[in-house]
């Protein structure tokens, strides 16, 4: 009777909270003119590997069908959407603004909170748009998304994947050494970076800030690509400031996201008290070309369960509606149908229940009305409080009892 490790059930009150967040995210996507798409949970393994690189195969639940076709559960949505666009929407006018709210699956050896084997991602892809306007659109939409669910103090770190290459070039690392250093920067392993005996590398991996940090990085960066990226970060900070986000957006040069398809702008959103990021994204101009469609793209996604954890830790439970059921109906399909047609939520009760039992059921579920149709007559009972629930009148005899 046990569930596999790393997956969970959602009970009605839990799912209601999750759905509320999903709806709030959908509302934000809609306000930014994004349209939702859906793709299959199962993809061909070669399609996912084409998008994600073969080294991520160990992250996949993969299996063969009976004809030995290698299949896998999608571990994220960007690759399936890239496949969808490059095979089905090539003729559509660009840019495309697509959104999704979907479950994805990852094979974690040791699943844990925030690292479940099944998780829900709510995100968007802006396809066919290059440049900082598109980058800014994803960042500011993500900020509004976290605002919408009530995480108005969420902070966002930004970076650009081109800058680390400029730094590695600037300190004279290339080939395997550069690749190794990049892995250490990604997890901010300063101990391993010190072994390269290039102090600038260690300093860079700790470098955070705003315009001053960008200028500091410029002292090391020589490549035109990394210098262009630094210029764009200046502009991004200015644009964030104009929206009143100056306290919430910071440059962090060690921010390199896990998946290897990012080619430019990158960001992650987080709140202080949760130890993992809540959302993130960036530019991945090389992904669609892997599917034979030569267009740039940028996107971001939020982990719905992680958003829920953040809200619950703050005691910000999404409100539960009372009076979810409007009327309790006994004895007549016709009366019940009329109530539903009038827009009411109707709960059926057994026709053999007496008035007291019906009132009891109504009180137990906070139902304000009871309608009984028996022998051709329709009666409505008023649901008052139980005698025992009424406030005890203050009389001289119980004044002292408090």
């Amino acid at each position, binding site marked *: 009777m046990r569930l596999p490790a790393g997956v969970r059930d959602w009970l009605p009150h839990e799912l209601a909270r999750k759905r509320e967040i999903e709806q709030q995210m959908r509302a934000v996507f809609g306000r930014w003119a994004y349209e939702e798409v859906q793709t299959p949970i199962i993809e061909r393994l070669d399609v996912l590997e084409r998008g994600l690189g073969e080294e991520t195969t160990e992250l996949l639940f993969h299996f063969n069908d009976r004809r030995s076709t290698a299949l896998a559960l999608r571990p994220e949505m960007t690759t399936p959407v890239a496949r969808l666009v490059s095979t089905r929407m090539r003729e559509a006018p660009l840019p495309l603004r697509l959104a999704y709210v979907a479950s994805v699956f990852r094979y974690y050896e040791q699943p844990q909170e925030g690292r479940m084997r099944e998780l829900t991602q709510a995100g968007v892809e802006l396809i066919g748009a290059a440049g900082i306007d598109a980058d800014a659109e994803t960042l500011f939409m993500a900020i509004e998304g976290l605002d919408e669910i009530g995480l108005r103090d969420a902070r966002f770190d930004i970076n650009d994947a081109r800058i680390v290459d400029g730094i590695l070039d600037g300190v004279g690392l290339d080939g395997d050494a550069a690749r190794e250093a990049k892995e250490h920067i990604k*997890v901010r392993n300063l101990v391993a970076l010190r072994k390269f005996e290039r102090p600038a590398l260690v300093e860079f991996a700790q470098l955070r800030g705003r315009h001053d940090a960008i200028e500091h990085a410029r002292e090391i960066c020589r490549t035109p690509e990394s210098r262009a990226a630094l210029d764009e970060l200046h502009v991004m900070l200015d644009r964030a400031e104009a929206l009143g986000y100056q306290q919430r957006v910071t440059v962090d040069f060690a921010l390199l996201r896990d998946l290897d398809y990012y080619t430019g702008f990158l960001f992650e959103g987080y709140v202080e008290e949760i130890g993992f990021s809540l959302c993130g994204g960036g530019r991945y101009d090389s992904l669609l070309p892997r599917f034979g469609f030569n267009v740039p793209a940028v996107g971001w996604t939020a982990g719905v369960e992680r958003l829920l954890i953040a809200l*619950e830790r703050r005691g910000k439970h999404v409100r539960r509606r009372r009076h979810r059921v409007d009327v309790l109906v006994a004895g007549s399909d016709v009366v019940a149908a009329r109530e539903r047609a009038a827009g009411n939520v109707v709960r059926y009760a057994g026709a053999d229940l007496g008035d007291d039992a019906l009132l009891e059921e109504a009180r137990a579920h906070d139902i304000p009305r009871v309608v009984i149709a028996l022998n051709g007559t329709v009666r409505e009972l008023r649901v008052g409080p139980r005698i025992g629930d009424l406030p005890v009148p203050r009389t001289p005899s119980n004044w002292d009892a408090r």
Partner: protein
Amino acid sequence: MSRPVIAREDGLTIAMPKGALYADAAARLRAAGIDVPHDVGRRLTVRTTDGTTLLFLRPTDVPAYVEFGSADCGIVGKDVLWETDRNVAELADLGFGYCRLVVAGRRIDRYHEGAPYPTFLRVATKFIRSAESFFAERDLPVELIPLHGSVELSPLVGLADLIVDLVATGTTLREHDLVVVEEVAESTARFVVNPVRFRAKYDAITALLDRLTAVPA
């Protein structure tokens, strides 16, 4: 279901390893200006006069507290980081707590002098992940026997051909007539931090990092 959140306070929350590393870790933090009490008795957590919260943990639990953000940062041996494989950022090698993770066998088996290993090696250890990757890299099929203590007993009574264990001075090996066959890795104490908390408490954490690394090792 909301849980108390210790680490949201303004001061840092530091996960401290109880046991062998504790005295050096406490001394290093004191040198870095944190008022670590000399006697904490049996308390699990202490709030210092400078507003730092200290959590006293089993060393193997330190990475989990830091990864989940229940502590902002912590001090832990590299050997524990190998075994737990938690997502924490390793900011500094603090130099103390030096020990080696080694493969050791009985002197009379002469593995240390180049005698060939048996075809099916049985290896007893507390360090499953490290042992697994060490023998996998050498393409040696092994049967790992996870033990929780007195690993050095296992080759003496025929439970295992070899052990993978931590060695500080080598006294324990000598007492049981065991010898080092190969070195797996060297370990020292590390200052680790939660990746998100590094950003959120950047000023406090980098200031502590600077003070911890400024002290001569």
